[in-house]
């Protein structure tokens, strides 16, 4: 083997290794989560875990009912989606279809810049501005509620939704729009009957990725949702999400205790949810490319 061939060989293997590393890491993380989490079910039946309504990891006897956490995550996510989907999709349509080309770049950059704000800063801003506002408007004992969390998380989902939905709308063949206009459609009719239909998979993928971002978000929700592990009945109650539970309790859980393993199971659930969401989004994104 001469020098050139050796060089080729090394570069080829190095690239292969870097390429496979990311996949190996994902698998390792999952295996590790399962390994640690599985021990938990020796002590607590899986049914109690998923349907129990009390999360009291530090009382005696310990209670690990995860329902309040799941409900908390669900409520905040749904709230954030109710706000960010209409706003985000409308914004994407505005940028892709309505605004003039010069302003378009400015707007798109601006929206993507929103993604660059660290979540702790969003949480902090929400804490000092939004939380007192919610408290005063609804006349509540505290402004740390699911609603506050939803509003701030909606901001965090917006860049993902707008950016990907805008790409999907721009990718709709211009000829579809011309065909609709040629039949006497107004701009709006062409948009909602043709462009939305053609861009639907992409818009759906954008929404799913937005959901993924919201569910996985930790810092901002921990700071502004109040962290009370009770099953919420309205948006105006404090809630605790899956993510915030892990972040807040991992530091104080004794290694090897039931509490410690329970947090790993919470991690597994979170992993499964985000994996499923990203997978669905991916399927839809690939559908567009075909």
């Amino acid at each position, binding site marked *: 083997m001469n020098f050139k061939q050796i060089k080729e060989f090394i570069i080829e293997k190095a690239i292969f290794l870097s390429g496979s590393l990311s996949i190996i890491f994902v698998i390792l993380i999952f295996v590790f989560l399962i390994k640690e989490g599985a021990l938990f079910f020796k002590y607590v039946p899986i049914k109690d875990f998923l349907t129990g309504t009390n999360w009291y990891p530090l009382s005696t006897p310990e209670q690990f009912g995860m329902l309040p956490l799941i409900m908390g995550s669900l409520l905040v996510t749904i709230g954030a989606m109710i706000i960010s989907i209409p706003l985000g999709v409308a914004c994407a349509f505005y940028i892709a279809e309505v605004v003039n080309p010069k302003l378009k770049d400015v707007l798109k950059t601006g929206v993507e810049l929103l993604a660059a704000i660290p979540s702790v800063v969003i949480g902090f801003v929400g804490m000092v501005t939004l939380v007192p506002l919610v408290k005063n408007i609804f006349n509540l004992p505290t402004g740390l509620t699911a609603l506050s969390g939803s509003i701030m998380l909606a901001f965090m989902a917006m860049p993902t939704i707008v950016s990907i939905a805008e790409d999907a709308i721009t990718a709709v063949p211009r*000829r*579809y*729009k*011309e*065909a*609709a*206009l*040629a*039949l*006497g*459609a*107004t701009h709006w*009719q062409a948009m909602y*009957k*043709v462009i939305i*239909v*053609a861009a639907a998979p992409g818009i759906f993928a954008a929404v799913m990725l937005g959901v993924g971002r919201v569910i996985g978000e930790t810092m901002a929700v921990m700071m502004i949702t109040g962290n009370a592990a009770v099953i919420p009945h309205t948006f105006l109650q404090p809630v605790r999400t899956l993510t915030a539970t892990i972040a807040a309790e991992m530091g104080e859980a004794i290694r090897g205790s039931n509490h410690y393993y329970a947090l790993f199971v919470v991690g597994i659930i979170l992993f499964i949810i985000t994996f499923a969401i990203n997978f669905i989004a991916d399927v839809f994104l690939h559908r567009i490319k075909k």
Partner: protein
Amino acid sequence: MVAGTVKIQTHNFNAWFDKNQVIKSLNMQVYSNEILGIIGPANSGKTTFLKSLNRLNDLDIKFKMDGEVLLDNKNIITAIDITALRKKMSIIFALPLPLPISIFENIVYGPRMHGIKTGLEEIVENSLKASYLWDEVKDRLNESALNLSGGQQQRLCIARSLAVEPEVLLFDEPCSGLDPISTAKVEDAMMELKKKYTIILVTNNVKQAARVSGRVAFFLMGELVEIDFTEKMFTNPQDKRTNDYISGRFG
């Protein structure tokens, strides 16, 4: 002589993309119930002229035009209700452009948009019959339009245009992507349609213009070189450039 009345006429019509003048001082008439073929090499302004008629060029911000284009003696350059204009002047593009929905939905798309809610089945049947497609698709109206062959898709697009009850049909090289048999079917449809509609046919295929049109206009570099009855144009053209183009010496 031309049988119909004047449907469209232009007076000193000019069009530009940026500073590039693509149509130069065009003066011509189109009569009702005729097929006017427009021939000419690439870049001669044929498609631009067609798209000016239903104002689709407006989508391009670099496009400018002036002069007069009269449809039934109303100037369309200053028309306010562009959607009504586009409903009257239906365009059929070079590549068939079915929307990604079912055959049925493709055809009722236009009528529905204009507020028609009843008798849609009838509209679909009539339009498909008029475009010579009914027999081939009557049993699979709910299938996706994208499953049709190229020639069928083009006839579907014609049916879709007919469903909005236009007055003028603008064909923009409708057979450039089709095989000879599909082409023949589209041409048959056109011959039938001229009884009811005014048709302007832009084509790169000189023989097609000779086959279906009653009169032919020859465009070159944005100018109307000659317009006359098909027979005269192909046997005894007045301008040397027309003769050169038709006999295949350039273009």
